[in-house]
């Protein structure tokens, strides 16, 4: 069985801020849960994998978000500098 975590950061107009982040991991089949005695042990394996995948997905998505932010901030600053130099404003 597989588990896929997809993170999609969007603007208010639903346009994508950054490309999709997708993490896919293998998780235990339902058959692994053989009974209440084994539940704790089997679910522990499942939870650890899921926690790692969740953190990896969010980490990657936030990295992309911040990369976009730096690009935007840089172009914003250049635009501001240009507009402050223009004679109309001074």
């Amino acid at each position, binding site marked *: 069985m597989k588990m896929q975590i997809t993170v999609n950061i969007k603007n208010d107009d639903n346009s994508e801020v950054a490309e999709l982040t997708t993490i896919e991991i293998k998780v235990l089949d339902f058959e692994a849960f053989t009974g209440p005695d084994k*539940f704790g042990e089997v679910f522990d394996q499942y939870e650890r994998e899921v926690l790692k995948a969740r953190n990896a997905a969010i980490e990657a998505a936030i990295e992309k978000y911040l990369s976009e932010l730096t690009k935007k901030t840089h172009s914003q600053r250049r635009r501001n500098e240009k507009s402050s130099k223009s004679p109309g404003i001074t």
Partner: protein
Amino acid sequence: MIDAEIGRLRIDTFEIKEGKRTVFATEKDVFPETGSREPYKTACFRELVVFFPCDDTFRQSADKVNRVLWGQEKTDQVRSRTIANLVEREGKSIQDHIKEKAEHILMCNSFSIDGKLLEKNFPSAAENAVLPQETVCKMIEELNAENIKERHIDFSELHETFEDPYSVNANISLDDVCCKKQKAGGRKKGSPVKEKREMVYSTIAHIQNGASKTYTLNTSTITQMMIIMLAFLLSNGLMSIPGQLVFFTDGARDLRLAIQNTFCFLPFKIILDWHHLEKKLSMAINGKQVKQQLLAELLAWLWLGKVEKAMKILREVSPRDDQKYNRTRQLDQISSPQSGLYSLLCLKKEARFAHLKQSHRESQWYCCFSSAEA
């Protein structure tokens, strides 16, 4: 409901019934049973929660756990009482598991579950552990060459065997630890003050193997410690190789007797560690100024293994009668062969004695008494 590190999971459960009889119920047949309204706690959750109370109170731990888990709703937050119960339950299950494992190891190695050897002989090689006299004499000569004559070590004054550190299988520091008992329900206003503070006693063993790897064991009694320690040493092969065990204790009789009873079938050595020797001597001398002066002198002589000289100094001091009793008692405790400290050997941990490298890092000098004599 499941409390997981991922968050609090609310799961729909169902039952299959044939008439009035329940054929299948997810609460019993899939998930482990818990108390009513008690969420099942996953291993990750339990692991996370028990980290904090090692250093903080249960209330502070609850705050930290809730911050880590980002429990927004008040109903989803972990309470301090829950953490307290969880810690107690985890502790008990760990102790039970250790006990079970220790018993299994003992049984597999021909011991009874209370640590008694069932077979007559236990393979050991005591001779290999002791240094030859020539080596010890050579060491003493080298040490004496650097000191004035008065401070020379005399081999004839040393009634001790000297073990080769390379033949020591394990250094075991053993002590009883006592701390204040924490109240289960917290402090209540107006509750009567107890005359005697309740204490919790536990026995701690710090085990170090030849490769300086360490492990710490903790039990509530000395008897339990002996069983678990024996199983630990067997399990890690520290008793199957030639060599001996070295115990560092505070000189307490109960610890010594327990070691002697448990490890009587193989060579071992009990050493009164320098810290406790200093402490015991300090207890024997009253008066701040006299104590400082005498202690410095005594320790300097004991450092060189000159027990007789140290005892002579202590006897020469004119004490008050009440002090004299205390001092004589302490002296008897550390000096009589019956009580343990038979002689004092000082081995300096220096590069030139690399072949006699001391493996116990805590103290530079050994203050020894032979288990045979003790």
